[in-house]
C-alpha cells in the first residue's frame, strides 16, 4: 500500500539493520513511541481512567521531548478570541491603555501569535473555576512584565472575550468589533511595590457592554487553533 513511497526495495547494506536483534530492539522502541504519541491526544478530557493511566506512564517522555500534544485544532468548535486589556498608571498620574496581542505592536505575525497564545492561556484558566489561583499567578506574571516594561506604578488587567458574530449579524451591517460582541472580565490590579494584587480587583472602566448571551457560534470554553492543555 505504501511501498511506492520508498523507491529502493534493495536490502540495506548497513549490516546492523539486517541483525534481527537490532531490528527487534528498534521495533520495540518504535512501537512504544507510537503508543506514546497516540495516547497523548486520547487522554485528553473526557477520557477513561485506563487511557489516563497509560498516558501518565508516558508523560515524562512526552513532556521532555515536547510531544505531549492533543492536536484538537479548532475543536470542538471555533470559539471566541481572548485578549488581555491593560490600563497602566504612572507616577505622574497619567494613564495609558493597551491590549495584547496587538498586530500593530507585535510584528511579525509569528510574534503576534506567541502573544495571542498567552492571552488564550489566561482564558483556559478563567473558564475553569478550579484554576482560580493559577489564573491569579498568571495574571500577576503579566502584570509584573507590563509594570517593568513600561515603568508604570500600577496596572489593571482584564480578559477580553471577542465573540464571533453570526452571518446574520454581518448581513445586518454590524461590524466584527461591535461592542455587543465583546465581554470583559477583570483580572486584578497590580502595583510596583512588591507587585501585589489588590484584595478586591477593580473593574476597569470599559466602553463595552458585557453580554450574557453568547452568540450562536460561541461555545465559551472552546479553543481556537490551539489545543486544550491537560
Amino acid at each position, binding site marked *: *500500500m*505504501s*511501498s511506492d*513511497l*520508498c*523507491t*529502493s526495495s*534493495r536490502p*540495506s*547494506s*548497513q549490516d546492523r539493520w539486517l541483525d534481527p536483534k537490532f531490528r527487534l530492539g*528498534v*521495533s520495540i522502541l518504535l512501537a512504544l513511541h*507510537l503508543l506514546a*504519541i497516540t495516547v497523548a*491526544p486520547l487522554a*485528553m478530557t473526557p477520557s477513561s481512567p485506563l487511557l489516563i493511566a497509560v498516558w501518565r506512564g508516558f508523560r515524562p517522555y512526552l*513532556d*521532555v521531548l*515536547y*510531544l*505531549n*500534544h*492533543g*492536536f*484538537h*485544532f*479548532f*475543536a*470542538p*468548535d*471555533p470559539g*471566541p*478570541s481572548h485578549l488581555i486589556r491593560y490600563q497602566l498608571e504612572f507616577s505622574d498620574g497619567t494613564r495609558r491603555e493597551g491590549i495584547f496581542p496587538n498586530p500593530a505592536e507585535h510584528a511579525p*505575525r509569528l510574534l*503576534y*501569535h*506567541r502573544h495571542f*497564545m*498567552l492571552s488564550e492561556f489566561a482564558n483556559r484558566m478563567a473558564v475553569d473555576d478550579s*484554576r482560580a489561583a*493559577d489564573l491569579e*499567578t*498568571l495574571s500577576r*506574571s503579566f502584570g*509584573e*512584565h507590563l509594570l517593568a*516594561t513600561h515603568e508604570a506604578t500600577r496596572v489593571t488587567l482584564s480578559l477580553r472575550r471577542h465573540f*464571533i458574530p*453570526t*452571518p446574520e449579524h*454581518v*448581513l445586518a451591517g454590524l461590524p*466584527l468589533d461591535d461592542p455587543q460582541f465583546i465581554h470583559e472580565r477583570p483580572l486584578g490590579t497590580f502595583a510596583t511595590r512588591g507587585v501585589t494584587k489588590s484584595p478586591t480587583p477593580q473593574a476597569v472602566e470599559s466602553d463595552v457592554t458585557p453580554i450574557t448571551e453568547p452568540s450562536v*457560534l460561541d*461555545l465559551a470554553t*472552546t479553543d*481556537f*487553533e490551539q489545543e486544550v492543555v*491537560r
Partner: protein
Amino acid sequence: MTAIQTSSADSMVAKWNQFWFTACDPVMLCVVRIGVGVLLCYSQLVWAIGSDAFFGSRSWLNADAVRVVGQGAYSWSPLWWLEQSPALLGLLHVSALASAACLTLGLLTRGAAIASFGCVLAYAHRNPAALYGFDQVVGFLTLYLAIGPSGACLSLDEYLTPTRQRVRSSVGANVALRLMQLHLCVLYFFAGISKLKGVTWWNGYAIWGAIANQEYQTVDLTWLASWPILINVLTHVSVWWEVSYAVLIWNRHTRPLMLALAIAVHGGIGLCFGMLTFGAAMLVGNMAFISSTGMRSMIEQVRSTLSNPTTRPAHEIARSG
C-alpha cells in the same frame, strides 16, 4: 500454534520489516530538512526579536507562571539561567540560529539537527504558554530529522563527501520518513475526530467561525455571509479531509487528492487567517508523503543542466538547426 497462525504471524513480521526496514532514497527526508531548517531560522529570529519579553528577567511568564501553565509538566530549560544576562541570551539566540542555518544548508547535519532539536526543547520548556501548532509540528519534524540521515543529499555534507561514499539508500531515512508520516496521521486523525464533538462542524458553519474572527483575519472573507452553501462546503470538506487523511494518504490513487487538499486547506488558512508559518510547517510535513522518484529525477536534471549549461534538449537543438 497451527501452521496457519505461524504463517500469518510470519507474514505480519515480514510486512512490519518491509514497512520500517526497507532501505530508501533519502532525498525526500533532505527536502523536508531544508523546509524545517528555513522555518526554524525564522522562528529563532522571531524569538530573538521578542527576547526581552519572553526570556528576560521580567518576561511575560515568570517561573511561577510556567509552573501553573504546565500543571506539573517538565519545564527545565537552560534559558532560566540566562535571564539576567542579555549578552549570554543573545549568544544563545545566535547559536540557535546558527544550528538552524547549518541544518538548512546540510552542514554537519546530524549535529545541527540534534542541536536544533535541543534548542526547540529549550525554548518550548521556557515558554509553554506562547506556543501553538507551528511549534508542535516543527518540534517533531526536527526530532525525526535528527534520527535519519537528513544531510545525505541536497547538502554541503554531500558536496564535501567523495562520490563513492555518498548515501543513495538508507534504512534510517526510511525510519525517519515513516515516523513523520505516522505522526502526521495521528495529528490529522485527532484533529478530525475532535471536531466531530462540535455542533458547527456538523451544521456547516465552523469555517464561518474562522472567517469572522477578527483576531485571526488577514483577508476579509465576510462577504461569504451571503454564500452559506459555500461556507458549508468548506466546512464539510475540511473536516472529512482531516478524518480520512490517515487512511487515504496511504493509497497511491487517493494520495494526490489528500495532498492537493492539504495545499488548499493549509494555504487557505495561512493566507486568510494569518497563519502562514503553521501552514508552511504542515505542508513541509506533508512532503514526507511525496515519492522520491520524481524528486530524484528532477534533482538529477537540474544537476545535469548546471554542470553543462550549454546542453539543450535534442528537440530544441533540432528546431534551432
